[in-house]
């Protein structure tokens, strides 16, 4: 049992509980030290089973490690530290404890050796992330969090039913690679995809995340979708469906982000887009592609957090989220602008940034597999990422027309968090060997070849040209774009209300019928039993004697007739 103390996820959850009661300097120390301790534990956790037991006749392995789980645990710990440093001034007493529960639960999934443990931590993640949303405190955030929770509880239910079915079929709960060959496996697959932000339910992500606080979305961007990538990597590598689903997500993210006016919703759509790249890699399923998907999840967490920190710093300083209200902030927020640009370059896979060394593995896997159409679509999508996140986000927030806003630069702790993540984005782009050595399979790939760098620069810079040439087409308006959530927010609501009215009128009809029947019974009772009516009158006793005599006579007569 001593291994329990080595579990970095449980350490973070315990620190979250502690944070709920601590104040002042002590709180700050725990806030920053706990993720670092979790990082050290995750780094040093040995391979193999560390905790096992029996539950209802099944073998359960709540704590098990290998290269893949360690990779995700390490990045989750780094993320928790960066997020905590950024959120140091967060006044909400709920957000950081919830975020630590959330991060710890994500690590719990990464170290789960059986599906039941996956389910338990899966649900804890849903609770933690919902609490992060709640802590934002606004009414819109609350409503968005309820929609978010409904989708995730649906996903959790699908997962539980799938796991139960799998346990019955396979007589084992161990979490190993599966095929989508039975109903229970399809249910598990669907549950994983819901958390990945896959269609048709992807709208939960851009609906809910941007409603969180300025620091909340930094945490939210990292754990749910990337844990889904992790479980798909372990559970369904090489599943062809993932190529098509991922490709849809890639383009859905780009198109919706191009139409969006809210700076953080642009980045939310961009999460779906990036997870799409990872799913395509998992679907291709070769060692190179799986390495690429895992590496991309790692680098994505860093640059997406960095982008959301810069957006969070802008929200913190200006209180504004819409591109139409922002612009020209580079004048007074130079560090935030520079860090936002580094994040934007990294997400676009510019050479010398982390995105370049990770995403190109997925593209290379498509090329090696002679998958021309997929390769072309991935190249188009890479250009599209630069379009919607690489240029659009920094352009509309920090440059474009001057909004006249002159907000102060972000506070020191936020700047430090941004600078740390910017350094990691560039550092991993140059010294990528440490990242490659953490990947699940041996890497035989050199990202920096002359032709690769030149073609990537051409692809990206000419998509930049397309952006500026077609800028009038991209002018932001005060609009939203309808998504699948219309189905449950408008159509579903209308159906529910209509059904409610139908039930109400049916109940009304039943009540009227009841009243009529009661009135009928009462009236007939009155007719016979009311004072003076036929059954309520007094009769002389002579009448009774006469009637009894008549009946006796009838009896005797019938008896006599029967006898003869």
């Amino acid at each position, binding site marked *: 049992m001593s291994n329990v103390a080595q579990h970095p996820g449980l350490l973070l959850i315990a620190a979250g509980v502690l944070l709920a009661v601590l104040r002042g300097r002590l709180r700050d120390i725990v806030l920053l030290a706990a993720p670092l301790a979790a990082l050290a534990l995750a780094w040093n956790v040995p391979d193999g089973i560390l905790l096992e037991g029996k539950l209802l006749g099944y073998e359960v392995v709540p704590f098990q490690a290998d290269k893949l789980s360690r990779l995700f645990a390490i990045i989750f710990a780094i993320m928790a530290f960066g997020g905590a440093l950024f959120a140091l001034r967060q006044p909400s007493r709920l957000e950081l404890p919830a975020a630590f529960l959330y991060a710890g639960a994500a690590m719990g999934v990464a170290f789960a050796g059986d599906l039941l443990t996956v389910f338990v931590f899966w649900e804890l993640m849903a609770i933690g992330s919902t609490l992060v949303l709640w802590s934002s405190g606004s009414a819109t955030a609350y409503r968005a969090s309820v929609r978010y929770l409904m989708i995730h509880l649906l996903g959790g239910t699908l997962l539980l039913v799938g796991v139960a079915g799998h346990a019955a079929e396979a007589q084992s709960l161990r979490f190993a690679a599966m095929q989508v060959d039975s109903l229970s496996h399809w249910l598990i697959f669907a549950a994983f995809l819901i958390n990945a932000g896959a269609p048709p339910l992807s709208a939960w992500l851009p609906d809910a995340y941007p409603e969180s606080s300025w620091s909340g979305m930094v945490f939210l961007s990292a754990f749910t979708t990337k844990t889904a990538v992790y479980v798909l990597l372990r559970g369904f590598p090489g599943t062809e469906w993932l190529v098509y689903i991922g490709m849809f997500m890639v383009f859905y993210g780009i198109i919706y982000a191009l139409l969006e006016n809210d700076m953080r919703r642009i980045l939310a759509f961009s999460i779906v887009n990036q997870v799409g790249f990872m799913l395509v890699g998992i679907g291709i399923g070769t060692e190179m592609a799986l390495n690429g998907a895992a590496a991309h999840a790692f680098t994505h967490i860093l640059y997406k957090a960095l982008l959301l920190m810069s957006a969070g710093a802008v929200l913190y300083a200006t209180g504004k989220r819409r591109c139409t209200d922002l612009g020209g902030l580079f004048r007074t927020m130079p560090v935030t602008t520079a860090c936002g640009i580094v994040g934007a370059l990294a997400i676009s896979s510019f050479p010398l940034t982390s995105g370049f060394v990770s995403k190109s593995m997925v593209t290379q896997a498509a090329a090696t597999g002679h998958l021309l159409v997929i390769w072309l679509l991935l190249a188009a999508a890479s250009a*599209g990422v630069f379009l919607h996140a690489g240029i659009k986000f920094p352009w509309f927030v920090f440059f474009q027309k*001057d909004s*006249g806003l002159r907000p102060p630069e972000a*506070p020191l702790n936020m700047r430090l968090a941004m600078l740390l993540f910017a350094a990691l984005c560039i550092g991993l782009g140059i010294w990528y060997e440490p990242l490659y050595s953490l990947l699940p399979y041996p890497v035989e790939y050199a990202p920096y070849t002359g032709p690769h760098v030149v073609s990537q620069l051409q692809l990206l810079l000419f998509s930049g040209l397309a952006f500026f040439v077609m800028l009038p087409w991209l002018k932001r308006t005060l609009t939203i774009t309808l998504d699948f959530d219309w189905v449950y927010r408008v159509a579903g609501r209308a159906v529910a209300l209509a059904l409610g009215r139908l039930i109400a009128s049916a109940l009304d009809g039943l009540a009227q019928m009841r009243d009529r029947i009661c009135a009928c019974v009462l009236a007939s009772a009155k007719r016979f039993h009311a004072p003076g009516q036929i059954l309520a009158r007094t009769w002389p006793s002579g009448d009774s004697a006469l009637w009894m005599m008549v009946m006796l006579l009838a009896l005797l007569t019938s008896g006599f007739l029967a006898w003869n």
Partner: protein
Amino acid sequence: MEERPSAPAQSVPAQTLSARTIRRLWLMLGAVLAATVLTEIWIPSEPHFEIERLFAFAALFGFLACAAMIVAATALASLLKRPEDFYRERGDE
């Protein structure tokens, strides 16, 4: 919907760039673009597919793909764009 800022952002009259600066920025962009295309003469591409043998394929493909995506987005917007308070007016928000 909006967060309370730590300090209200100071607002001043908006500044604009002069036409000359904008022209200079365009020239700079043009020079960088030309440089990335011309580099291909010295560092020829290592194609995985036939189509990549085309000179400056990545540049052309990047531009056209982005233009196509912007057009597609605009077309989709004509169907799916709604005012910001669309959901609020429907009692959901």
